[in-house]
């Protein structure tokens, strides 16, 4: 965990509104775990004031080239342009200076090898699932259910398939894959593979629905949540969610940045879970 002053290696649009950014990141390849995130500083000057949290899509090595003796470590982010910070990010070029604080938070627990794994995600929710799949395919059968409003929200299908993940796509408007909600696909898969563990990341309503399905069946579930964050390290207490057993008298707030972003579903208070990330665009 440290603050890294580094540079952008590449930054490209991969689907309308979705970008993929590669960043030089010494030390990340061995330490970053699936589900962890970074606090990304867009530029040294204002705006924006605060850093932006982004899941780590991938960590890896670039082969050594003639100029440098050692192979270079990098991470990749995938981000959707939604507001002031990501608007600036999309204009960054190779060589531009950026800062990374991380890797931060608790990532996914990979679970028992050999057991069936179902990943559920949509939009940028797919980001942390990629690194998770990368690790899990080595020992388990991994199915990925991708959902979204429309075809633009279905990103990285080829990348996942290349890992050997079975992917199932559904879109609400039927523009890609099966028409309808991802949850109907999940029910079907759980009927067929009832011993699976589920790993979900995506918009809150989706996560909420997935939780209900898993809870009914007693299926183990890990979820990755989003919350508004100022510090990313547990200092500001801005990013809390209510933990299981939370009451007004005996509050059990958990920081999404340090106890999460990945939680065991049973550790959260699902009655009182709030969608803290309001509407489109957050605050400006």
């Amino acid at each position, binding site marked *: *965990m*440290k*603050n890294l002053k580094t540079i952008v290696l590449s930054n490209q649009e991969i689907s309308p509104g979705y970008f993929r950014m590669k960043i030089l990141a010494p030390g990340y390849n061995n330490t970053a775990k699936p589900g962890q995130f970074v606090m990304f*500083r867009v530029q040294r000057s*204002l*705006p*924006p*004031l*605060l*850093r932006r949290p982004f899941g780590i899509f991938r960590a890896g090595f670039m082969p050594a080239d003639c100029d440098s003796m050692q192979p270079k470590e990098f991470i990749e982010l995938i981000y959707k342009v939604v507001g002031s910070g990501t608007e600036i990010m999309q204009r960054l070029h190779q060589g531009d200076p950026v*800062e990374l*604080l991380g890797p931060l938070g608790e990532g996914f627990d990979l679970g028992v090898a050999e057991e069936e794994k179902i990943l559920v995600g949509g939009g940028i929710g797919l980001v942390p699932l990629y690194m998770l799949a990368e690790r899990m395919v080595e020992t388990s059968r991994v199915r990925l259910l991708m959902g979204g409003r429309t075809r633009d929200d279905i990103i990285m299908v080829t990348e996942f398939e290349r890992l050997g993940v079975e992917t199932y796509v559904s879109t609400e408007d039927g523009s890609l894959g099966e028409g309808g909600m991802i949850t109907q696909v999940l029910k079907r898969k759980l009927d067929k593979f009832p011993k699976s563990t589920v790993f979900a990341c995506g918009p809150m309503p989706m996560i909420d629905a997935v939780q209900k399905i898993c809870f009914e069946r007693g299926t183990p579930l890990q979820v990755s949540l989003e*919350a*508004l*964050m*100022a*510090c*990313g*390290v*547990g*200092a*500001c*207490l*801005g*990013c*809390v*969610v209510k933990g299981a057993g939370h009451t*007004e008298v005996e*509050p059990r*707030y958990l920081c999404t940045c340090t106890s999460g972003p990945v939680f065991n579903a049973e550790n959260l208070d699902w009655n009182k879970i*709030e969608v*803290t*990330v*309001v*509407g*489109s*665009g*957050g*605050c*400006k």
Partner: protein
Amino acid sequence: MIKPVKNEMQPKMAVEIAGIKLKNPIMPASGTFGYGEEYAPYLDLNSLGAIVTKGLSLKPKAGNNTPRICETVSGMLNAIGLQNVGVDAFIKYKMAYLEQYSTPVIVNFFGNTQDEYGEVAARLDDVPGVAALEMNISCPNVKHGGIIFGTDPRAAFAAVSLVRKRTSKPLIVKLTPNVTDIQITARAAEDAGADALSLINTLTGMAVDVKTRKPRLANIIGGLSGPAIRPIAVRLVHQVVQAVKVPVIGIGGISRAMDALEFLIVGARAVQVGTANFVDPNAMATIIAGLEEFCREEGVADINDLIGTLEL
């Protein structure tokens, strides 16, 4: 970007506030640095002038519903609602951790009644390692219809007087900027026995999501901090320095050495860095280095020679 060093002199950076000796005038602002531990991986806590912890209450406090934070233009709103582990857990777990550092620990605290203020102060009084108390009077006085202690000079005087009786530690009173005349509350706190004053706490503000038409904070109103508020903070520190004899700690929108210097020049003996820690966990180290560099460049042998040198 390091400018040429004019001479090799190592300027003296130590300052003294209410009898506490600080290596340098830089410390975190309460609530932006957790209990210290959170930033230990990024910053050498021993390099700081002091460590100031998250505000404590008698019992653990849940804090507000979410959303609790929101970015604004060059600032942020927060309505954390003073969530904290409570004074007893602090003493047991958090102080134990902090004792490994040589840096003085200043403990921020608050209460909803005078008695609660007094009780928290009393419990901290014999805790070794607590260098001073910082009393946050920006809290609603539940006994008096929720009026903020810090906006009513009489309530402030009474609460500070009570706390003064219950602690032998140096007492810093932290003032709210949301008042017509801060010199009045400043003098009330001084008269009641404060050894030092710190200011400013956040300015109350609000933001609205125009699509959902809801406030951006669950609590509707929150506290504005960050670079946006600095000119207001500098003005208030300037006014308080002229009104009282006790030392003043400047707070508000400090993110660079230049910003800290503005406060020192108007007369603050030390400064606290808040929101800037979120932006750059290394901000305080950079500011300390920047102050040293400024002193060298300007030929200032001792940072104390800069304090209160505003030319009018």
